[in-house]
Structure formats: structure tokens, C-alpha cells
């Protein structure tokens, strides 16, 4: 314990390091310096965030690296941050991907370079803040704060229908989070605190007398906000639009991290604050998740647009996460957490790779390509590796998570597992079929025969993801060791409920 003197302030450092970088960027006039400084700060944040897993004590089930200072007295808001096994890896995922986003955007963003990187770094701060805050107010602030830079990234740097996509993204998530705000305010009004831990304890003790009557509504308030973010079927329609129009780095962070905010929220708040309501509502949530898995996969299969295909595959994969969470089994939750991380890596990389194609041909239409394996061998190999990771090939990261979720849902109810397992099959179909159409066969469009292969910057952006996918697939224990205790803690109230139900 003595070795980490940084412990009380490390979360603040990690969260605000990118923001400080963004402020410094304002002062830098030259585009090249802007890029370098953005890279420096995102790497610095990554290095700082590595402190978290290094000094994370596994046996510690409560929150680590906590900082809790009063901020505003009325309402009673604390600057309360802390992480557990769930949030730690999501923080690291965010800090891992942001430098890669800077690299992949190095040449592709040519206009308004400064604004782009400022927004990217502000977005990173907001994303990390979402995962580190333990005060509901702070959480809500960061939650909303992710919206603006993301919407601006889509709207300023996107493609043809960018404004439509940006506004749709903003309105969907903004309106949905109003419900969460209402629920948060209710909790504050009846518990007198925004502190997550304090509210959870009060509820568990039964110290909030009017809570049982309001709990179903509060549960829904949180759930709607998270479900739109995930996005759970039928709230997913903003996602394909946002992805197709977003610039590459925006897509990467959107898919890899922003969507995880929703599943993380379910895990932390829906399960943490409303265990009973989670149990009661699990059946229809699982049905929605199953629809999402299968529907997302089927729709992905028929997409003519590369990015839309990956977007719908996200709907399918995130269905697995929701299924795992609401299976209330150790394996299911472990798997859900792992799918979140694995999907972040592999889908992030897929979007980078799609961006590489767009960079060269300014289109995402699959029919525009074909036979790319001969002009771009390195690109094709990297793409194949990531596709296989995403499709769930054993020894790569996708497999571990999906396997755990499936085992967990089999434990919960066999039919869930059976239906969800078809999703694995679908995913290999649409991914491999897409791969075949883009890379194999003859070069159908003559422009494609002279496409340049991956550049140095692109390689440095994509390969770390590939390495991560491999390491996660071979040694998942590194991640699961920290996730496991957090899952046990999260499931503890459910054991009570289950035993009480059995006793009745």
C-alpha cells in the first residue's frame, strides 16, 4: 500500500489530464504541433491510467483509489470518485484507445485540426469521468458532458448527412437521460445525498421509506437512459446513422466506449441500487437483448455499407452484454464485462480499418471493393485478424466473453443460451461474408488495384488492438481476476433475494 502515494489523486489526474491537454491545445497555433501535443497527452493519460491495474488490490471488493471531498453544500454534492473491477478496465480501455484515435486521425483530419483534437481530448475526460464518478451528480454531469463533444465531432467532421446524425444522436440520448435525471433527483430528494455508496446503503437498510413504491419507476428512469445508450432494441436507430456519419476516431470511441457507458450504467446503477426491480424486470430485458442479438446480426448481414454492418454488429454484441448482466450469474456477469472490453478493442479496430478504406476511396459501400487482398496484403491480414477476433474465434478476445455469457445464460435458462448462441453463428456469417466480398476474388474496380497499403501511422494504430485481442484471448485471467470480485460484490444482494424467494 505504501508504494502508491498517488492513490488519492490518481483518478483526478487520469480524468483531467486530457482536459488539461485540450486547454493547452487552444494555445498551439500549428496543426502539426496540435497533433503531437494531443498524442503526448493521450499517451500520458494512458501511462497514468496503468497505475490503476498495477496497484489494484484484487481482494479489495469495495471501491479503490477513492477520493471524497465536499464540493457543493446545497445540493449536497461531493467530489467522489473511485473504481472497482468494472470501471477500472473501462477506464483503461478508454485511455488505451484514445492515443490510437489520435494516430488514425493524424492524416485523415486536415481541416479544423485544432478543434478536432480539442474535442477528442474533452471527450476522453468526460468518458473517464463517467466511469470514475461515484457521486450521482458528478456521474450525470460527465454523462451529459460526453454528448456535446461527440455530437460536435459527428456534426463538424462527419460525412454527407452529418448534421442529421449529430442532432439525432444528441436528442435521443439527451431526452433519454432526462428520465435518469428525474430519478436521480428523486433519490436526492428522499435520501439527501447524491453519493452512490450512501444511497445504496440507505436503500439496503430500508432507510428510505417511500423507496419501495417509487423503485419500479426509478429503475425505469435509469434503465431508459442506459438502454438508449447501449443501444438496446428498439432504441438503436440512432446508432447506424451516427456511426456512418461520424469521423473514424468518433466512431471508434462511440462504439468502443460510449456504448459501454450504457451497459456500465446498468451494471452499476440498475443492479446496484435496484436489485429487486432488476430481478423483476429481467425477463423482458432479456427478451429485448435476445431480439437485439438476432435482429442486429440479421440486419448486419444485409448491409451494403461497411460501417453500417459494423454498427449493427455492435447492436448484436451489446445484446450479449445485456443478456449476461441480467442473467445474474457469476459467469454471465464476468462474460458481460469481458464482452464489453473485447468488443471495445475489436470493434474499435474494425472502425479504424473501415476508416482506412474510406480515407482511400471515400466510400463505405462493400460493392465498391473486392479483391483488396492483392493490392493491400498487410491491410487484409490485419482486417482478417480483427474480424476473427470479433467473430469469436477461440484464443482471441471475442470468444472468451461470448463463451462466458452463453454459459451464464444457460445456467439462468437454457432457452436464453440456445437463442443467444445462434447470434455467434450469425456473427461469423456476416463478418466472414463481408470479408470475402471485400478482400477475395478479383479486383473488380480498377481504382482499387493501386490502393496503398497501411501506412506507418495506421499500422501503429491498428496493431496494438490486434495485440490486445490476442493477449485478452490467451490470458483472460489478467482481466477476470479484477472483474471477478466486483461481480461477486454486485451479485451479493441477489443471493439474498433468491434465498428469500426460495424461503417464501
Amino acid at each position, binding site marked *: 500500500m505504501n508504494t502508491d502515494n498517488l492513490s488519492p489523486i490518481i483518478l483526478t489526474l487520469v480524468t483531467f489530464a486530457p482536459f488539461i491537454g485540450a486547454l493547452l491545445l487552444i494555445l498551439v497555433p500549428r496543426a502539426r504541433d496540435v497533433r503531437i501535443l494531443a498524442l503526448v497527452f493521450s499517451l500520458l493519460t494512458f501511462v497514468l491510467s496503468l497505475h490503476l491495474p498495477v496497484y489494484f488490490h484484487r481482494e479489495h471488493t469495495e471501491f479503490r483509489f477513492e477520493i471524497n471531498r465536499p*464540493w*457543493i*453544500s*446545497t*445540493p449536497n454534492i461531493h467530489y467522489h470518485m473511485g473504481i472497482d473491477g468494472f470501471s477500472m478496465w473501462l477506464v483503461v480501455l478508454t485511455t488505451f484507445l484514445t492515443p490510437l484515435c489520435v494516430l488514425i486521425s493524424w492524416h485523415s483530419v486536415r481541416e*479544423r485540426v485544432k*478543434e478536432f483534437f480539442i474535442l477528442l481530448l474533452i471527450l476522453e475526460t468526460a468518458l473517464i469521468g463517467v466511469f470514475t464518478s461515484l457521486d450521482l*451528480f458528478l456521474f*450525470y*454531469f460527465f454523462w*451529459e*458532458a460526453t454528448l*456535446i463533444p461527440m455530437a*460536435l465531432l459527428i*456534426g*463538424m467532421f462527419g460525412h454527407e448527412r*452529418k*448534421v442529421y446524425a*449529430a*442532432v439525432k444522436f*444528441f*436528442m435521443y440520448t*439527451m*431526452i433519454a437521460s*432526462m428520465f435518469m*435525471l*428525474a430519478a436521480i*433527483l*428523486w433519490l*436526492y*430528494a428522499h435520501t439527501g445525498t447524491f453519493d452512490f455508496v450512501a444511497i445504496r446503503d440507505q436503500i439496503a437498510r430500508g432507510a428510505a421509506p417511500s423507496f419501495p413504491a417509487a423503485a419500479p419507476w426509478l429503475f425505469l428512469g435509469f434503465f431508459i437512459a442506459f438502454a438508449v445508450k447501449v443501444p438496446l432494441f428498439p432504441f438503436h436507430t440512432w446508432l447506424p446513422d451516427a456511426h456512418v456519419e461520424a469521423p473514424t476516431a468518433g466512431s471508434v470511441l462511440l462504439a468502443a466506449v460510449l456504448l459501454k457507458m450504457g451497459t456500465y450504467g446498468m451494471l452499476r446503477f440498475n443492479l446496484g441500487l435496484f436489485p429487486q426491480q432488476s430481478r423483476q424486470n429481467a425477463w423482458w430485458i432479456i427478451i429485448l437483448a435476445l431480439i437485439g442479438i438476432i435482429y442486429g446480426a440479421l440486419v448486419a448481414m444485409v448491409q451494403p455499407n461497411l460501417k453500417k454492418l459494423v454498427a449493427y454488429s455492435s447492436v448484436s454484441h451489446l445484446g450479449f452484454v445485456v443478456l449476461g448482466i441480467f442473467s445474474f450469474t457469476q459467469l454471465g456477469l464476468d462474460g458481460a464485462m469481458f464482452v464489453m472490453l473485447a468488443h471495445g478493442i475489436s470493434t474499435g479496430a474494425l472502425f479504424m480499418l473501415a476508416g482506412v478504406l474510406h480515407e482511400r476511396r471515400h466510400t463505405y459501400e462493400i460493392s465498391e471493393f473486392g479483391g483488396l487482398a492483392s493490392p493491400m496484403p498487410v491491410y487484409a491480414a490485419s482486417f482478417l485478424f480483427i474480424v476473427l477476433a470479433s467473430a469469436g474465434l477461440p484464443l482471441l478476445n471475442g470468444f472468451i466473453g461470448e463463451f462466458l455469457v452463453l454459459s451464464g445464460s444457460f445456467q439462468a435458462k437454457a432457452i436464453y443460451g440456445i437463442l443467444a448462441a445462434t447470434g455467434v453463428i450469425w456473427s461469423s456469417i456476416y463478418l466472414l461474408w463481408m470479408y470475402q466480398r471485400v478482400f477475395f476474388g478479383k479486383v473488380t474496380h480498377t481504382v482499387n488495384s493501386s490502393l496503398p497499403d497501411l501506412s506507418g501511422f495506421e499500422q501503429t494504430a491498428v496493431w496494438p488492438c490486434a495485440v490486445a485481442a490476442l493477449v485478452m484471448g490467451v490470458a483472460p485471467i489478467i482481466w477476470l481476476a479484477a472483474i471477478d470480485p466486483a461481480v461477486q460484490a454486485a451479485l451479493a444482494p441477489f443471493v439474498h433475494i433468491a434465498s428469500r424467494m426460495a424461503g417464501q
Partner: protein
Amino acid sequence: MTGAAPIPHLFPALLQVLPQSSDYIRILPEIVLSLFGILIMLLEPLIDEKKTDEKKNQKVLGVIALVGALAALCATWVMSQSPGLAFWQMVQIDGFSVFFHVLIIAVAAVVILSSYEYLAVQRIRAGEYYALILFGTVGMALMSSAVELVLIFIALEISSISSYVLAGFRRRDAASTESSLKYFLLGSFATAFFLYGVALMFGATGATNIGQISHILQSEPVPLLAYVAVALMFVGLGFKVAAAPFHIWTPDVYEGAPAPIVGLMSTAPKAAAFAVLLRVVFVIDVHALFWIIWVSAALSMTLGNIGALVQSNVKRLLAYSSIAHAGYLLVAFAAAPGLGTSAAMFYAASYAAMNVGAFAVVSHFANAGERYVSLEDYEGLGRSSPLLAATLTIFLLSLIGIPITGGFFAKFYVFSAAIKANLIWLTIIAVLNSGIGAYYYLRIIVVMYMREARKAVPATPAPLSLRLALAACMAVTLYLGLSPNRVLQYSQGSAEQLVQRTGGETQAPALSQR
């Protein structure tokens, strides 16, 4: 010489009748403002004699006006050191009136700052402009400290008449003239309602002093006439704050009036009228007024926001948004006295900061003759003047109510006051409305950043005066968003004083039954 003898006997009596020095201290800000206003009026003809450097001379007047406003702020501090009643219980200095004095005078100062450039660009002669702002400020400041209905009326008229004239200051533009005339006709109509209410209240209770009225109404059954009186007063004040259904004038008047003046009109007189309303609300059993306020709040929010959705002129859009914000403020009124009052005060402060800031940016972009005020003209501003666009964005985000801006806590306090008073439905309406509101504020942001300019709109760099004004508004907006503690505690303290004095605590249970 024989008549000299009685004088020593008369003297003490005379001293009692004459105002004392402490009385003057309690209206010191008003005195300072009036003196500076008169000074400007006196200097203006002298300055205009030499036509050599007119622009510079105009600026001198502006600087005098600014100094006047700042001096008045200092005077407010002096005034705040001697709380109490003055001028035969016509004026009351307490935390409440000091709060609104600071608010109103600060708004006036920022508006004066943001007017320098505007007047030069529009080629408007400055003299009376600044004087009128100062005189109007006198009226508004007096409204917040007056506790005598007749004095309130006079103060209301002082502030109104200055704003009627200011609204028509862009003489060469028909829209401005229309704005002024419309404001004048409807405004005098509304003040007549207020006066009628005052008269009826006098008929019902035999008093015009708010403290006395409150005392009389608590000791005997409330006569019907008193309800009518309060309702009529509400009509008059509702007009001033642009609350529905008395809001019809707002878009036209705001569209035509000079942009900095709209910044002033949409904040300071509103704050003053809300101050009066707060004092009046506690006088009479609020229950009668409760439903009027409830309906007016719901209507203002809904009509304001829906009206703003379809506007293509930024000034009109902000006009409708100000109707909506009046609605949010009224939600606080419908809530319980103690909590609702401090929430309303906080809201008034943060709304003033963000709205004056927004209008300062609008008045800069408007250019000569206010040519560029439609949404189309804002296309591509994020590229051509990034700093100003970013500033406007922050004000708009605050108007939406995004956290760490003052607008968030303003809404937060109002809504939580409403929830505590069990006004569930009104809160739901308010929350839904802020969702609608997000859309049209966002439209401006979208247009600024995500669309390419189709028209060549000249981007002039912001002068120092405007930067100062914007920096002040921004500082207040962010300060209220990052650490609202002190302002809130201050407003809570003064609200408690107010509630205790007028016996509001006896009405609190009656309200919370709703």
C-alpha cells in the same frame, strides 16, 4: 422677530417629519445612478458641439455611464451596511433588495459595456441612450426595495418609460419604431392593470404598505376584493415578465429593439418585476393566486418553447425562450415560499448572466442596421469567429441547463423546490419543456458549427469592451455552475428574512398540501 420663539419647539417635530440621513443611505444607489444620468444629459449637448471626433466623445459618455453603474454597485455595498426601513416605511433594505440591486445594476453595467461597439456600428447617438439606461435602472432598483404599492408603481413607471424609449432607439428602422409603440401601448395598459390592483387593494384593506396589508389580511378573513386586487397586480407584473398569457408583445418588441437593450429588457426589469411579485405573493393567502401562477407557469413554458421551435430570427427565438424562462421562474413561485424564493432569486441571477451574454454576442454579430440576425447568418460562425461562437455556445448550453453552468443549478433548484412542494405535474411539464428547449438552442449551435456559410457575413473582431462584457457574463455563468454555494446561501438567508417578516411560514403548510 416675535415669531422666532416657537422655532425651538418646532424643530424636533420637523426633524421627525424630514427624512434622515440613514434614509438617504438606503436609496444611495438610486441617487448615484440618477446623478450620473443627469450628468450625462448635461454633458451630451456640450460634447456634440465639437464634431471633430464624435465616436470618441460618444465613448466618453459610455465610460461615464459605466462609472456611474460601478459607483452604484459600491453604493449598494454602503446601503447593504444599514438594513432597515426608510422614508416612512416605503423602502426596505434587506438581503433581498440588496441581491436584486446588485443583479440589476450589474446587468446595466454589462449592457452599457456591450453597447459601446453597438452604438458606433449602428451610428446611434449615445447621450440619452446611456442616460435612459441609468434612469431605467433607478426604477428597477427601486422596485426591488420598495414595500409601498404606490412607490412600486412609480418605480415601475420609471423603468417602463425608459425602456419604451430605448426600444425605439433604432429610429431609422420601422421595426424598432413598431417595437417601441407596441411596447408603450401594451405596457401602459398593463401598468394600468397594476394600478387598478393597487387601488382595489387599498379599498379592501385601507393600506398600501405591503407590511400593513399583510398584517391586516392575516388578522381578518380575506375580502374577495383583495383576491381581485392581487390578480390584477399579477396581470400587470405578468406583462413585465412576459409570462403567458401576457406575452404576446415579446417577440415583436424584442425583434425590433436594439439588441443590447433586449439583453437588458429581458433580464433586469424582469428581475425587478419578479422581486415585486415575490413580495406581493407573500402578502395575501397564496392559495388563491396559486392556480393563476400554476397555469401561467405551464402556459409560459409551453408556449414559449413551442414558439421558439419555429423561429428563424435569433432575436425572436431568444424572445420566445425568455417567455419560457419566465415560466420556469414562475414554477418556483408556485412552490413553497422559503425554498421557492431562493430558487427564484438564483434563477433570476443565472438567467441574467447567460441571457445578457447571449444578447451581447447577438448584438455584435448583428452588424450595421442589424442585418445579420437570422439563423442563416450564423452559419459557419464556428469557423470565422471561433472564440465568439464558443462563448455563445456556452451561454446557450447554460440556457439549456447543462451541468457546470449556472443554468443547470437554476433549473435544478427550481425543480427540486417544486418537487418538495409536491408539484409533480408542474415539474413534469417543466422537465419536458426543457427537453424541447434543448432542441432550438442546439439548432443555433448546430448552425454555427456544422453548416458552411452560404452568405458572406463580415466577421469583425470583438472590441475590448465587448470582451470585457462577455468575460463578466461568462465568469458569472460558470461561477454559478461550479460553486453555487455562496449565492444560494445568500439568497436562502434573505428569503428566510422575507418569509418570516411577512408571515409566509403560516402559508407554507397550506401550499404544501397541493
